[in-house]
């Protein structure tokens, strides 16, 4: 007796094909996908900076934080094309310190950097005070003689004068690579879902 024929019928193939087709269409031009990833990653990084809540220098001096990092948050920009997604970080945000050590020197025509050492001078330049507020002095430190600007009235140090400042790399100034990867993954999933939903609609 011949074996009974068994027929296997695969159903739903058309629906799967349609989903695949629209996915392929949605992924063949990746500009919107990359715009989505760049935007989500930028917003994620902005949130990170807004919530960083690190005011080390202000806390050390007992000064009111100036919100420097908060203000930097809006300077970040998403950028993308068909090949890649980027977060653009302007150099004047100081966030380059997240990627490398920094060697900071005075600008052209200047001899010293002024490093605030008082709650009165934090966030301000020497010229922001009336003329005659400070006097130049050299004080002895454990590293040798060091020029400073002292308040004339109290003798308190207003600024340390330095020819350069070295800052060590601090990766915590920006989200971790893993954090960015997760955002990119979530954004990609949201995009794919959106493509499928649009096709269904």
């Amino acid at each position, binding site marked *: 007796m011949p074996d009974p024929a068994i027929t296997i019928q695969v159903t739903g193939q058309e629906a799967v094909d349609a989903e695949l087709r629209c996915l392929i269409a949605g992924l063949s031009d990746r500009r919107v996908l990359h715009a989505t990833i760049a935007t989500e990653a930028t917003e994620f990084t902005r949130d990170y900076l807004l919530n960083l809540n690190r005011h080390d220098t202000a806390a050390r001096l007992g000064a009111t934080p100036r919100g420097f990092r908060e203000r930097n948050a809006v300077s970040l920009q998403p950028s993308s094309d068909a090949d890649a997604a980027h977060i653009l970080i302007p*150099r*004047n945000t100081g966030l380059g310190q997240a990627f490398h050590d920094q060697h900071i020197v005075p600008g052209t025509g200047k001899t010293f950097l002024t490093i605030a050492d008082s709650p009165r001078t934090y966030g301000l330049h020497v010229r922001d005070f009336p003329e005659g507020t400070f006097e130049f002095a050299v004080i002895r430190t454990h590293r040798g003689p060091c020029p400073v600007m002292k308040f004339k009235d109290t003798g308190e140090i207003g600024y340390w004068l330095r020819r350069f400042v070295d800052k060590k790399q601090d990766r915590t100034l920006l989200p971790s690579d893993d954090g960015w990867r997760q955002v990119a993954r979530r954004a990609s999933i949201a995009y794919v879902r959106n493509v499928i939903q649009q096709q269904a609609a």
Partner: protein
Amino acid sequence: MPITPTLTQITDALTAAQGRGLLPTTLDSAGLKNLGSEVLARSVFTAHGAYAPYISTLKDVVDKLAAGDIGEGQARTALWESLKAIGYTPEGGFPDTPVGQVPPALQGTLQDLMSHQRLSLIAKTQKDLMTGAGEQARGMMQAYLAAYPAYELVRMGHVKVARDWPERWLISGGKEPGPEFPRMAYQSIGAPTGMIAFKGDPVWGELGSSGNFDDGLDVDYPPWCYNSQMWWRPRSAAYCALHDVTGPDGESIDEWQASQPNVIGGKMPLPAPRISMTGVDPEIMKKFMRDTGGTTDSSEPSLVNYSDILARELAHAHAKH
């Protein structure tokens, strides 16, 4: 696909900053408002800043600030040094300011161009304006418009006393936020506020209109007014659907975008081809024309054609980078 954080010089803010001409003027803030927002948005100016070399320095500094070459502190220093070199004094103004044109300012006040307050305000406002303009231009690019058709108004920084933004939103014609958004959310940094509108919705322009609010900067992008610390966040179509966001007349996203002529495909939006200068002092108009190279049509002398110049400047800026 990895995300690449890029330390950069070529920013949207720089592109926006470079597309502006100079506008030396003796006018105060109130007088400047009469010039019209289109002129101001495309010019570098400051109230009582009649001295062309200073305005030119201001433009250079803003360009560098927008490019990320210098910080706000360095910008303040550069402007202060420029004013000092020129011989500006708060009492007498610029050396060649006609007597009586600019009232004397008290040293250290906001009217004193050399004061910390004034220089900070200039540096921060100009930087934010250029960033906002750049962000708006990018937001209108096809890919970004498709992914994020709307913005939500959010706080991005602390202020001592927050202005009542939900009230401003309603005055500007925005729709009442849903009950899921606490009314005071606008006071918390980064919190969703429910003040959501499509890109290009007139509410964004009304929010920055000096006709509606005395501190308005006459722009339809952040920061809208002096020291607002408010910004916007791009919102997806799914977010809009969740919170029932529609156009001003109840349009869907597709209907709204189809009705907008300014949707662009990867370039900065060009301005309206002509700017009305009706009612503007002929001397100021002459200066404006001279400094910007604008042209007029003899049949309508109050309309200045400016778009060719801006297009040339933008092309030049793109070519340079």
